C-alpha cells in the first residue's frame, strides 16, 4: 500500500499493466517523453520503452482509429484524449466503429480499447476544458463508461477497463486528480493523503466494472452520483445533517441497478447529481430508471441537480458548478413532500 493521489494511482495502473502484458501500450498527445499534461504517464516511456508509451499527432479521430486497428491485431491499447472536450473529433470512430465492431461482425472481431480522458469542471478551464460528456457515450450501445471518484477505484477500475474485451470510455474527474474536492471552492482542499481511499495497493488488483459503492449509508434520501459529485454529495450530507445514502455509481454502463433499487426502495426519495448539463444528461436516464423500478416506493419526484443547460462559462465557474448548496437544496426538495 502506498498513499497515492489520483494521478499517481492512474500512473500506477498503467505501469502495472505495461509490465504485466506486452500487448498493452499507451499513446496520446504529449504522453511520451513529457508524461502527459496532467502527468498521468510520467516516467512510463523511460521505464517501459519508446514503443510502449509515445506521443501522437493532434488528431483524436486518428488516435482512436489507430487504437482500433491495434485492437484488431490483438493489442490492448490505452489512448489518452487530452481533455474530454476534445473527444468529439473521434466520435465517429468511437460510435460507428469501436462500439459496433463486435456486433456488426457477428463476434468475428472485437475491440479491447480503453480511452482515458480528463473531464469535468472546477479548474477555471472555461468551456473547452470543463465539459462532462458522459451521456454522449451512455447512449451508445457497445460502449462501457466508467468514472472513478478516488485513487483506489481509479487504479482498480482502469486495470479492469484495460483487461475488458470491449471498448471502455474512462472519464477521469480532473478536479479530483490532486485531492477530494467537495465543491467548497473557498476552503482549502485536503490532499488525497488524508483520505482513506488514497491507500492503494502497489501491484496488480482490479475493481470490477458494473458495481456501485455505497459511500455513505443513510435512510432519508438516496443520492446517485459519480466522480467529483460523490465528494460534493458527502459534503452536502455533512453540512445539512440529512441522513442521505450516497451511491457512487463508478460505472455508468453497465449500471449497478440493484444497488440503486435497493437503496431507493429503502429511502423512498432520490436525488441524481452530475456536473453535465441537465437536458438529456445521464441523470435523465437515472431518473427514468428509478421511477420505472421504484415508482411505488417513491414519495417525491426524483430531483436532478446538474450543471445548467449552458456551456461552462469561465467567469462563472462556481455559479455553474453544482456545489454542496445545490445538492443540499435537491435533497431538501426530495424530502419536502
Amino acid at each position, binding site marked *: 500500500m502506498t498513499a497515492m493521489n489520483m494521478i499517481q494511482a492512474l500512473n500506477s495502473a498503467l505501469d502495472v499493466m505495461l509490465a504485466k502484458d506486452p500487448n498493452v*501500450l499507451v499513446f496520446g498527445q504529449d504522453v511520451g517523453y513529457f508524461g502527459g499534461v496532467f502527468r498521468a504517464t510520467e516516467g512510463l516511456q523511460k521505464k517501459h520503452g519508446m*514503443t510502449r508509451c509515445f506521443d*501522437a*499527432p493532434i*488528431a483524436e*479521430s*486518428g488516435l482512436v*482509429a*489507430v*487504437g*482500433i*486497428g*491495434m*485492437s*484488431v*491485431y*490483438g*493489442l490492448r*491499447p490505452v489512448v489518452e484524449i487530452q481533455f474530454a472536450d476534445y473527444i468529439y*473529433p473521434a466520435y*465517429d*470512430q468511437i460510435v*460507428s*466503429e469501436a462500439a*459496433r*465492431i*463486435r*456486433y*456488426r*461482425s*457477428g*463476434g*468475428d*472481431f*472485437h475491440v479491447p480499447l480503453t480511452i482515458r480522458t480528463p473531464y469535468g469542471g472546477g479548474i477555471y478551464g472555461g468551456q473547452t476544458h470543463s465539459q462532462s460528456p458522459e451521456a454522449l457515450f451512455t447512449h451508445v*450501445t*457497445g460502449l*462501457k463508461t466508467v468514472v472513478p471518484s478516488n485513487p483506489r477505484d481509479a487504479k482498480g477500475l482502469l486495470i479492469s477497463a484495460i483487461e*475488458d*474485451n*470491449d471498448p471502455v470510455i474512462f472519464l477521469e474527474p480532473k478536479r479530483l486528480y490532486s485531492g477530494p474536492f467537495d465543491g467548497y471552492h473557498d476552503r482549502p482542499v485536503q490532499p488525497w493523503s488524508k483520505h482513506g481511499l488514497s491507500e492503494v495497493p502497489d501491484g496488480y488488483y482490479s475493481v470490477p466494472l*458494473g458495481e456501485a459503492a455505497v459511500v455513505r449509508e443513510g435512510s432519508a434520501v438516496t443520492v446517485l452520483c459519480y466522480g467529483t459529485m460523490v465528494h460534493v454529495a458527502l459534503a452536502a450530507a455533512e453540512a445539512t445533517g440529512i441522513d442521505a445514502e450516497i451511491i457512487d455509481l463508478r460505472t455508468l*454502463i*453497465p*449500471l449497478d*441497478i440493484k444497488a440503486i433499487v435497493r437503496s431507493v426502495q429503502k429511502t423512498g426519495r432520490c436525488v441524481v447529481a452530475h456536473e453535465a448539463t441537465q437536458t438529456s444528461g445521464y441523470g435523465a436516464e437515472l431518473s427514468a430508471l428509478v421511477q420505472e423500478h421504484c415508482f411505488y416506493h417513491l414519495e417525491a419526484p426524483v430531483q436532478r441537480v446538474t450543471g445548467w443547460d449552458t456551456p461552462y462559462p469561465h467567469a462563472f465557474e462556481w455559479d455553474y458548478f453544482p456545489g454542496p448548496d445545490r445538492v443540499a437544496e435537491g435533497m431538501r426538495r426530495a424530502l419536502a413532500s
Partner: protein
Amino acid sequence: MRNRGTLSLHIPEPHNRPGDAPDFSNILIPPAGALERPPIDANARALSPYAYTLIRVLDAEGRAVGAWNPHLEPQALIKGLHDMMLTRAFDERMYRVQRQGKISFYVKSTGEEAVSVAAAHAVEASDMCFPAYRQQGFLIARGYPLIDMMCQCFSNVRDPIKGRQLPVMYSASSHNFFTVSGNLGTQFPQAVGWAMASAYKNDDRIAVSFIGDGTTAEGDFHHALNFAAVYRAPVVLNVVNNQWAISSFNGIACGEEATFAARAIGYGLPGLRVDGNDFLAVYAAEQWAAERARANLGATLIEHYTYRAEAHSTSDDPSRYRPTDEWQAWPLGDPVARLKQHLIHIGAWSEAEHQALSDEIATLTRETQREAETIGTLATGSRPAKATMFEDVYEEIPWHLQAQMKEAGV
C-alpha cells in the same frame, strides 16, 4: 454585404452528362512500359512523378512490357483471370437475386475487378485487409467460401455475421479480411493502426486497405496518411479511383485539381498511380509497395485509375447523371478482356478454355446460389434465432439487455 463583382464560386462539373456523347479525351494515358521501376528503398520525394502518370504493363496488343512487368507464371495469370471472372459472375448473380427481391441491396464491382484481385494476389494471405465495400474480389481471391458470402447477403441462418448487416458487409477474420463498415473511410486509419501493431510486435505481416475516390475527402484519409508517415507503418493504402461517388464525379472529391496519388507527396510518402484495369500493373505496384513495407520502409499510397462500370448500388440509377455508354468509351478497357488477351497472346490460353472456365464459373455460382437459397433467404424467414439480436453488443449480455430480451420474449 457588398457586391463588387470580383469573385465567383466555382462548382466543378463533369465533362459529360446524360445526353452528351462520352468523351475521355482529357485523360492522358502514357504508353505501357514507359516507366522505370524504382528500387523499393527509393526516396519518396524522388518518386513524385509517379503520382502524375500511370504505371501500365499491358499494351493494346496484350503484350506485357517494360520494367514494371511482374513476370508472373501463366498459372498465376490464369488464377488472376479466374478470380476476376468469378467476382464478375458472382456480382451478376447477386445483382439478379436482388432484382428478384430476395436480398435488400447489392453492390457490384464490375470493371474494377483487377484492383482487388491483383492486390490480393500480390500480398501474402497472412497480410491483413481493411476493405471498403467494393472489395469482394479480394475476398474471393483469398478463397473465402462463396456460400458464406451468399449466406451473408441472404442474412440467413448461416450468415457468418448473424444477419446483422446489409449484404456485402462481409467479415472474415479467418481470411484476414476485416469487417466491412457502412461508414465510409473509417477502415483506412484502422489499417494503419494494425500495421503499427505488427511493427510494434516485430512481426512481418503488413496491412492493406482500400478507399474510394469520393471517400478520400473524409478526415480518416488524412489521419491514415499522417499516422502512416509519422510512425512509418507497414501498410499499402489503395485509392480506388473509379471516377464516381454515387452521382458525384471525382472532381467533387478534388480529382480535378490534382491526382489522388499526389496526396502522398505532402506526407513524404511514395504515391503511385496505376492503370487499374491492367492486372499486371496493379499486381506490380502492389508488390512493390508490399516489399517496401515489409522491408520496414513504411507506407505507400496507390491510386488505381479505373471506372465504375455499373450503378453505384442496386439503389442507384446512373443514367440520371452520366451518359449511359460511358463505360464502352472508357479508354483503359475491361480488366478481364485485357488479361484474357494477354494470356492468349503468350499462348497460355484459348477462346475455348475461356468459354469452359466461364461455364464452370456460371455453374458454380448458380449451384452455390441454389444451396444458399435452400438454407434460406430474408424472404423465407430463415434467420438466426431472434435472441441472437441481443448478443455481441458486449462480450457478455448486461442486465439491461437481458431485461430487454425478456420484454422481446426471447
